Structures are given as C-alpha cells and as structure tokens.
C-alpha cells in the first residue's frame, strides 16, 4: 500500500517534469501559436445571457402548467416536499411544484435527465421502520411523476430513514423539516 503510493508519487513527479519540459519547448519554438491562443480566448469571453432559463421556457412551452416565468422558476427550484407524521401522502400544496417538475422532465430540454428521489423521516419510531417509511415517501413522489408521464425507468428511489436529518433537534419544527422527499436531477 505504502509502496504503491510512493511509486505513484514518483510517477506523478516524473510526468510533471516531462510536462514542464514540453512547455518550455513550445515557448521557444515560436510566438505564432501564442497569438492564435489569445485570439480564441477573446471570442470565448463574449457570452450571451438568456432572459429566461431554458428549463423554465421549456415548462412554459409545454402548456401543461400555467403561471409566470418567475413562478415556474420558483417551483422548478423547489425540489423538496414534506409529509405529515407517519404518512406518505402528498400535500396538495406540493402538487403544483411536482407538476412543474414533470412538465420539465417530459419537455425536450429535460427529457435526458434521470432522477434520484430520496425519502427521509423524523426520528420517531425505530430506525429500520423509518427506512421503509422513507421509501414509501420517495415512492409517492415517484408514482406521481410517473402518472404525469415521466418514465419510471428514469427514476431511482433511495430511503435514508432518519439517518440524514436536515435539523437534528428533537422538536416538532425539526421533525416537520426532516419528514421529506428530495428530487435530485442528474444529467443523463
């Protein structure tokens, strides 16, 4: 183990020396190359900024949800839904955000993305019971998105039970924060 690390270190050092050698060679070989590189850099600094996030525009274009660009942007950023104690029922207040997520995920822009949905619980009950409850919560979100046209094969569910509380306090407010499902998008 130790030897392997030392060997790796030596190898890295050698590569570095070789690279330095190459760099000094190019420097002496001519200045024309440098001018070209500088020119390329200049064109890259001019970047246009779209007024509307393409993801938001895709949701608006889908016609599946109504609302302003600001509202859609807010809902698209809302990746966490919350649950009542010992429940895996979605709150009506979270449905709008999930509708926006689904509209994005089924749009040409969001089509290629895969999802991981994490399920979490509060600390009440046993750890192993909560592991199963957290999965139910994540599945509730998954099932809703599937109902709205997102392919089930794009969604993976993982429950952490109460292993990863947002708020480790032992209060009603902390528990409400911790009972959640989180939608994480991964570029396909």
């Amino acid at each position: 183990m130790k030897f392997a690390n030392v060997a790796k270190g030596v190898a890295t050092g050698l590569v570095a020396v070789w690279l330095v050698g190459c760099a000094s060679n190019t420097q002496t070989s001519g200045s024309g190359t440098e001018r070209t590189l500088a020119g390329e850099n200049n064109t890259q600094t001019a970047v246009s900024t779209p007024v509307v996030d393409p993801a938001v525009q895709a949701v608006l274009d889908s016609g599946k949800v109504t609302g302003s660009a600001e509202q859609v942007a807010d809902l698209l950023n809302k990746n966490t839904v919350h649950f009542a104690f010992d429940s895996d029922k979605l709150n009506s207040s979270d449905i709008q955000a999930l509708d926006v997520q689904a509209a994005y995920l089924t749009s040409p822009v969001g089509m290629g993305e895969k999802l991981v949905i994490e399920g979490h619980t509060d600390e009440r009950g046993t750890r192993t019971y909560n592991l199963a409850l957290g999965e139910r919560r994540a599945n509730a979100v998954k099932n809703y998105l599937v109902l709205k046209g997102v392919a089930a094969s794009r969604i993976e569910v993982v429950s952490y039970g109460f292993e990863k509380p947002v708020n480790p306090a032992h209060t009603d407010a902390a528990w409400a924060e911790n009972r959640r499902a989180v939608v994480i998008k991964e570029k396909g």
Partner: protein
Amino acid sequence: MTRIKFSAVWSMLLRISLVPLLLLSLQARAELTIEITRGNDQAVPVAVVPFAWNGAGVLPEDISGIVGNDLRLSGQFAPVSSEQFLGFPSKKEEVFFGDWRRLGANFLLIGRVNEQAGGQYVTEFELYDVISQKLVHSGKVPGTRNQLRAIAHKISDEVYKEITGVDGVFSTKIVYVVAKRFSVDRTDYKLVYADMDGRNQIAILNSKEPVLAPSWSPDGRKLAYVSFETGRPAIYIHELATGRRERISSFKGLNSAPKWSPDGKKLAMVLSKSGNPDIYVLDLETRQLSQVTRHFALDNEPDWMPDGKSLVFTSNRGGSAQLYEVELASGETKRLSFDGKFNARARVFPDGKKIAYIHKGEGATSYNVAVQELDSGRMRTLSSSPFEDAPDVSPNGRMLIYSAQGGDQGVLGIISADGRVSFRLPSSEGDVREPAWSPYIR
C-alpha cells in the same frame, strides 16, 4: 471439582481472546462509562475483596473492580462498598466470617494473582457462603497480562452461575454504531465491537454513509448489517476475525434488517424489490431466496423464534405498526401486539417465551422498551426516555440493551429483563445507537 472445570474455561479463554489480541493495536480509547439509573433493593449483597498481588509493580488489572462492576451490572447483586471492609483477606486463614456477616454480605469473594516467569499470571479465587461459612466455588486460571481482564469477566461468570444457577454473560460482546454528525451531508459512521461492559472498543468499520441493524451469527464469528457505503442500502456479512466482508444482498430498493437464523444457515431480511417491503429468507448455503410475506402494507424487522420455524415481524397492515408471527411452512400469520399505536422491532428471548420491542402507548409521546409474555399476552414497558430503539436480549435472557435518543446525543442503556435495574453507557465520541448483543462465544 474445579480443576477440571477450569481447564475447560482456559481453553475457552484462549479461543475468545484471539480476536481482541489480533486487533489490539486498533483499539480505541474507552469512551463508554457506566452510570446507574435505577437500582435493585432485592439484590444479593456480595463482598468482593481486592485480589492480592504477588509480582513486580502494581496489579495490571483491577480484577475485583471488574468482577464487582459485572455483578452490579447484572442487577442481581449489590457489591458491598470496600470502604466498609475491616480487612482484606486473600486466603481462607485470613477470613473472619463474623466481620462479613455484620456487613450484611451473603457471599465473599477473595483471590490472588501471582506473576510467573515468562509473562504468565496465575489467578486464584475462592467464593464463600458467609452464612454457612463454607467454600462454594474456587478456581485457578493462568493467562497473560493481556488476558487478565477477560479472566476477571470469566470469574464473574463463575460466581454468577454458582449463585443464580444461570450462565453469566460477562464474557460476551456487543456491537453498536457511533455516528458523528457534522452537517446534513456529512456524518461519520463507525461500527464498534466491544466487551459487554463497553470496554476494549474496536472500530471494525468506518464509513461516510449510514450503517445500521447489525445482527450476530449464532456462533459469534460474523455480523450481518446494512451499509449505505455504495450510496444505496445493501446487506453485508462481515467476518470478525479477518475483517473479510461480502455484499450478500443489493437488490433495487430496500435491503434491510438482516437477522441470522438460530441454526446459522439462513438470513431473514427485508427487501422491496417487488415494489413494497416484504420479509424474505435467504439460504446462505444454496443462496436461494424465498419470499415470506406478500402484503401491500409495510412488513419489516423480522426475528426468528428459537426453533427456526416461524418469524416475528412488524407490519402496519392493520393501520398501525404492530407485531405479527408468521409460520414459515404454512404462511399462517397471527397478530401478537394489541396495545397502543406503535409496536415494532421485536427481539425474541432465548427461551421463546417473551419478546422485547419498542412500544408507544395510546396517546403517549415516547417510544420505550417493552417486554411481552407470549402465552399471556401481558406486556410492560421497562424504561422511560423519549426515543428508545433497537432492544436486544442478552444470551441468558436476563438483560436487554437498547439505544436512547432525545438528549444531546444517543446513548446505550442496559436494563434487567424484569426492569428493576438499569444502566446508561454514554459515549463521549458521538451518537451511539443500533446495539446488538453477541451470543455466548465458545
């Protein structure tokens, strides 16, 4: 009588001490300290006299201190404070029974440790009945310096067995998880192996992802547990002596709550690969998986009856989490718990007559360890901190270990199965949870 008996004890010691000796260099600081939370006024008073030392320097281990602590921890004994002692006999000729009777001691333990050539130590002890003034048990145990602590636990086992008629558990081990939380995204997890009194801790697994639900193989050589080290829950089998591990179940969804069958050939577990958590049994030899429950409710947390023919498990099929028993051959299922809205994570006692589990009473807010007699259905809660979890039964059925959350950090509790005595094993190093008590290690 005792010579023959102790040669057997010695060979046992040799075997059990192999693992701790090999891993001694990895040993963590002892961070668990014992606090008495509730005492027992019916405990048997016993005087444990500091052992005499014939050797260089000081006695390397406080043998009498360890024995006294063990006996107190059992809840069935009350060691007499040594401050009251009128003398410190280490041989029969030095014992004046009247003195000990006046202190109220029913039994008297004396002994001595002799250092020999070649790093060997010979520990001798005698147990006297103070009332009848008779020798009831004695022994002579050789060992190295590193084995003195294990020898002290063995003496505790002998004393306990002689007086109660039941095997002691002072040479058994526990495993548990210590979690140190830095933020929502960063917690360090350690699976720790220790003596049942919390000493000689060895971190056998370090992970940045959750570890939970350890279960001992019945021979005490392996553990099965859930680890999220790949980012997803999977069940691993971990061989203690070698540290060798095998990922045994990593289906899509839950791979949770493994529990070894009494014959060591199967593993009960919870899988949700069909979309919903159900109980399965994996045959460890043939690797054949069989599904035990098929229900749209959440079926969870299996444990075996001692005959291996049925499983106790948690299910919310009746609208709240309750305990059920399923017979493996017929699939016949009956409900075991009826009191309250949450009864979960049952552990069956070694005689199969009782179960320990986590209970929340009707209208109550706390989750507590409860014990239920299966014949009568009679249940009583034993403890009272707000969020208890993971009860496990000692191999002699006399004590339970569990975790308690709700304070600044989780601690382990040990409680006598009758609820009369309890101890806390707090840790200075993080949140302690998910304890599992080893079988007798022979």
